[in-house]
């Protein structure tokens, strides 16, 4: 957190200390005019309270002064705030290797379920699109903020078959996205690029356009699992996926099972639709401080006398 005018904060703290000092002085003065009572122990026992409202009012007034001074100091901080009108394209691998069952029930079904979880977790107003890719890439759901339409489109994702054209998928996804605003591509794949454009060349261009690419690798690398119907082992080029994410301001994550895949995607639904913004807390702090001070003073006056 930074302050535009830190001197105001110091002045406020000094003022609050002064206020507390004056309150104490007033208490000492008030002692001289205190009302004599026969037996204070009996009085306290008879009217016992759990807390001292006088102390609460003095502290509230001091807190109000500090908050007002804090507001004058212009506090600013960075926070992740939801982006209205952000856009995300989900690139889902539908190559033949997605038939593998190391992620139950199959990688393709687990990916579809995770995509559904992603759609559910995304804040309303965020536009979504789905691009499916195998030997080629195609838009399954155009960019829309209608979540139901996107959920319907998930069932239209083609069954797993063919090669893996990651570079083509990234290029199409970039074209689907609007030219400005918060934009992200979430790539869900289990394989190695073996067709079309080189993703390591496409990713930096996408990143340069201000689009974030997050990659998720599905499956168990080196497990000896074969792509069903072939004699090929279902491997994954994690280094490539990491490089793709790194060159477009994103991050790579690996999901070995359906549940972790869902978790990763739900987390991405949160991070890709938020952005770090500098927040000026002066106004809310001023309102809070003013309100607390007013309440403390009004409470003190209503209670008969200000302590």
């Amino acid at each position, binding site marked *: 957190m930074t302050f535009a005018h830190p001197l105001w904060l110091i002045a406020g703290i000094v003022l609050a200390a002064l206020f507390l000092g004056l309150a104490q002085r007033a*208490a000492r003065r008030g002692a001289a005019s205190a*009302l*004599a009572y026969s*037996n*204070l*122990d009996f009085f*306290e026992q008879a*009217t016992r309270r759990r807390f001292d409202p006088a102390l609460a009012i003095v502290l509230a007034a001091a807190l109000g002064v500090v908050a007002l001074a804090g507001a004058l100091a212009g506090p600013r901080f960075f926070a992740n705030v939801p982006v209205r009108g952000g856009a995300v394209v989900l690139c889902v691998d539908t190559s033949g290797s997605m038939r593998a069952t190391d992620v139950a029930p199959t990688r393709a079904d687990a990916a579809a379920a995770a995509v559904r979880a992603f759609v559910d977790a995304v804040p309303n107003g965020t536009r979504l699109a789905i691009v499916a890719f195998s030997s080629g890439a195609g838009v399954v759901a155009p960019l829309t903020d209608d979540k139901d339409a996107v959920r319907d489109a998930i069932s239209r994702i083609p069954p797993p078959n063919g090669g893996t054209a990651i570079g083509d998928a990234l290029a199409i996804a970039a074209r689907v996205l609007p030219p400005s605003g918060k934009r992200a591509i979430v790539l869900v794949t289990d394989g190695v690029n073996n067709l079309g454009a080189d993703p390591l060349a496409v990713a930096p261009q996408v990143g340069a356009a201000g689009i974030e690419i997050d990659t998720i690798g599905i499956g168990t690398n080196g497990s000896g699992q074969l792509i069903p119907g072939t004699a090929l082992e279902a491997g994954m080029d994690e280094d490539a996926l990491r490089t793709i994410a790194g060159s477009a301001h994103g991050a790579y994550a690996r999901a070995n099972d359906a549940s972790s895949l869902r978790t990763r995607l739900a987390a991405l639904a949160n991070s890709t639709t938020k952005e770090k913004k500098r927040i000026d807390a002066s106004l809310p702090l001023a309102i809070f401080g003013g309100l607390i001070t007013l309440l403390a003073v009004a409470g003190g006056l209503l*209670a008969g*006398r200000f302590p």
Partner: protein
Amino acid sequence: MNALRAAILRGARATPRAGAATRGTRPGDGFVFSQLRAYVEGDDPRRIDHAATARVGALQTRVYLEETTLVLAAIVDESASMRVGRRRPLAAAAREAVRAWFGALEGEDAAARIVDERVVRDRRAAPLVRARGEFRFEGALTIALCAVPRGASLLAITDGFDLTGETPLERAALRFDATVLLARDPWRDDLPLRGFVRLRDAESGRMRRVFVGARERARYRAASHAREAALRGRFRDAGWRVGTLEEEDGRASLMHAFALR
């Protein structure tokens, strides 16, 4: 005859106690008029007051009490807690009561005022003397038990704040015709405080800032009533005649304790 003196005599006779076979310190030397009352069959005809009978239109009998010298003793709580009050200090009312008490002295009656661990027997000084040291009810009562003759009439005025379980109330009631005037909390029925107030303990000088709201006032009223009832019960159970010292009028408080106006 002083009405209070007669009441003290009547009260002392009406409540004979074990160990108090002799009501006075000296034997009686005659009879003194006490009151007029309607004639009851069996009354000595010589006691019929003809003037009163003519005035009233029915037979009136003069009641005489055996003249007895009294010993009137007093213990007055003069601690700082008695110096509080709503319009005037309770101590002022206590002084009025004690003056009225010793005002009942007649003839050969004797006085005994326990002040500062000593007994003032001077009849003129007894109602006026002031304590200088710290007052302890228990200590004063113990001195009375040792120094005041058996059968004396004892008046104690206190707010009861320093009463302990060890205070020899029962022993005092057996030895004396004991009367207590319990100082009524001036704020008993309505705590005249609102909001934040600073209170100072009259005895210790301790300060405390307290908040008094409707709930606190209600709690205080209940606690004050309960405390007074408990104190009255304790003295009554011990065999004392119990009255209330009202801030406004100490003499009237004493008279009420003896059912006098």
